[in-house]
């Protein structure tokens, strides 16, 4: 077994070029392993769900609400657009990630924006919006505490709702002391207050606020935001311009529909019966209003999503981004979010990433699961995540994307399997060789070309093979 090592504190996202390499590094990173155990979002969810006496019916209903919108998605989007425009919101459509950045830059240029404050937006992570804005001379400040921390560190989020889940209080204490030039203190309460003080200045001086959108409401043309810190409210209330960025799949028909989904969203995400702030934004400042933006924009993003519609992957578009699948995933819980290599980690990431950036660019992700189905069981909108990962594995095989060793190995196995006599002989020989390799301990300490035995021993075959036992039983012996 290798020695566990502490991480260097450098940007974790850069290390390792493949999922396997990154996962390997994370599995040996004691600090990340410990930090992940600080959060118990799975326990919080379990306690909150007990309150819903008819949870299964509510999940089925929530999945149905999402499916209804996806079934006629263009009609609902058209309705959203009509209602939003009627109330003074500018609606933009982005086909690609590059389009998102271009549209935001155009809005910023037109409104003479210099400072942008951001509430959490995972879609903006997809398009590397911050880098694009900074490259054009804009100051960008993330305001969600976790996002602020990772922005200062030059990292990407490692969880969709707890972006700094891989860090501990000392990391944050060092970071704030360096960037804020304040005395180092590692008390989370003090650090939170310090962030409030520094970010309040930005809230009051930002020209543009950028948010995500948990949902778009077709009935009223509204953007629906679910937050806890209050930064979502500040970002969409204080600056002159508000831009909401969200995917085409986030439209929900009515206010009643979204109220149903909210009951399972917050409980699944943080174990709360409701988040502290639920904000419904319907257009810019009205006549007589003393607060609110002069301009409100919504950017509706495709960037690969429409490709999933009408396919065996469509169920993934139900996702409401609660994070429960990653909180319950034995793989995610041991390697953290950065190992997944793109915006969305955990089981939903293993499904979305290959679909959005190409199956050939995420070759390991559909395999980054034990298919234990904890994710499928907890998903509030019943996305069959293990089934979708299995289908992606099949597509990899169909398209010949698996590594040649694996394809060769399977072809060899198939050749033998089609020849029962030869297969039985080969199995017998392999069992004998394995038994000899196991020696007196009955354990194989090192399998050739396989990392499996790095962490544990492989039990050597013992006794007769299955075929020998079966033959003996059939002969009545």
């Amino acid at each position, binding site marked *: 077994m290798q020695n566990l090592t502490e991480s260097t504190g450098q940007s974790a996202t850069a290390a390792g070029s493949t999922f396997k390499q990154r996962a390997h590094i994370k599995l040996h990173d004691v600090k990340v392993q410990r*930090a992940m155990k600080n959060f118990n979002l799975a326990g919080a969810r379990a306690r909150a769900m007990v309150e819903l006496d008819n949870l299964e019916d509510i999940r089925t209903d929530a999945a149905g609400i999402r499916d209804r919108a996806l079934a006629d998605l*263009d009609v609902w989007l058209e309705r959203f657009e009509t209602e939003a425009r009627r109330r003074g919101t500018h609606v933009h459509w982005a086909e690609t990630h590059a389009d998102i950045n271009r549209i935001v830059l155009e809005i910023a240029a037109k409104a003479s924006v210099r400072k942008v404050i951001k509430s959490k937006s995972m879609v903006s992570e997809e398009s590397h919006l911050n880098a694009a804005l900074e490259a054009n001379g804009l100051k960008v400040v993330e305001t969600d505490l976790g996002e602020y921390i990772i922005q200062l560190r030059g990292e990407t989020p490692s969880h969709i709702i707890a972006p700094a889940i891989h860090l*501990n209080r000392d990391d944050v204490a060092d970071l704030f002391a360096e960037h804020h030039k304040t005395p180092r203190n590692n008390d989370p309460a003090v650090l*939170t207050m310090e962030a409030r003080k520094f970010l309040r200045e930005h809230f009051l001086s930002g020209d543009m606020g950028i948010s995500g959108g948990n949902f778009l409401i077709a009935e009223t043309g509204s953007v629906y935001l679910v937050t806890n810190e209050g930064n979502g409210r500040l970002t969409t209330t204080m600056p002159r311009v508000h831009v909401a960025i969200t995917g085409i799949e986030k439209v929900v028909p009515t*206010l009643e529909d979204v109220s149903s989904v909210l009951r399972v969203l917050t409980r699944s995400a943080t174990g709360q019966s409701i988040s502290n702030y639920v904000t419904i934004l319907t257009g810019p400042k009205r006549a007589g209003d003393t607060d609110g933006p002069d301009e409100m924009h919504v950017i509706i993003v495709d960037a690969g999503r429409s490709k999933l519609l*009408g396919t065996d992957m469509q169920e993934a578009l139900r996702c409401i981004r609660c994070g429960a699948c990653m909180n319950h995933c034995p793989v995610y819980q041991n390697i953290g979010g950065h190992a997944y290599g793109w915006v969305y980690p955990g089981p939903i990431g293993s499904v979305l990433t290959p679909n959005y950036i190409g199956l050939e660019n995420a070759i390991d992700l559909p395999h980054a699961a034990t298919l234990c189905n904890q994710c499928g069981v907890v998903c509030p909108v019943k996305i069959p995540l293990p089934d979708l990962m299995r289908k992606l594995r099949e597509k990899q095989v169909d398209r010949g994307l698996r590594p040649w060793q694996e394809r060769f190995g399977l072809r060899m196995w198939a050749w033998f399997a089609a020849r029962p006599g030869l297969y039985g002989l080969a199995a017998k020989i392999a069992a004998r060789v394995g038994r000899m390799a196991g020696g007196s301990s009955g354990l194989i300490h090192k399998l050739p070309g396989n990392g499996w035995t790095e962490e544990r021993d492989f039990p050597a075959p013992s006794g007769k093979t299955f075929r020998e036992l079966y033959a003996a039983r059939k002969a009545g012996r």
Partner: protein
Amino acid sequence: MSARDNILGRIRAARGAGPTVTAAERAAVDERIAKHPIGVRPAMPWETVPRFIEQCVRMSSTVDRVAAVGDVPAAVERYFDDANLGKRAVVWPEIAQLDWSATGVVVEARPAAGPDLVGITGVHLGVAETGTLMFLSGARTPAATSLLPETHIAVVPIGRIVRAMEEAWQQTRDEIGDLPRAVNFVSGPSRTADIEGLLQIGAHGPFRVHVILVG
């Protein structure tokens, strides 16, 4: 072709629909919106006012109750003294109209700004299921007053407490019609658990939410 038409066209092609939205499809959307049915909900075997109080406390709000709206200023002064908050507050106009003369509290009827420490508001509705306050933005109900100060006090007449969010939306449609710029549902003080998963009350929004029930 615009990006909009490309995206909507791809969606229609993916679901095997014709190139343009049909009248029947629009009618189906209209019908769902007109009916806006309530989905499957958990059992709600409770009375609204006790439930509201219980859930406010669960979300870390504090709750006081007075018999009549005329008792609100004294209740505010009591809270100020107990929490050591000084004597000044920015308030919604409806709150400024109460008789504050018997108290030492100085109220200013203007939207809250950065340095203000206490904001006092009314409420559009209270939601019993989750202990939630519902605010509508507007000229006489500025959103900043429930957001910028460290302490937010909300005056809630018990007659304005509804069962759940679905009832809140229906009542808003009946009373107001269209939605204002911002509808804010607030459930307790702001919070974060972004450092080591440890809950901290008071992130960017108020540290304290105090509910004064009337009736």
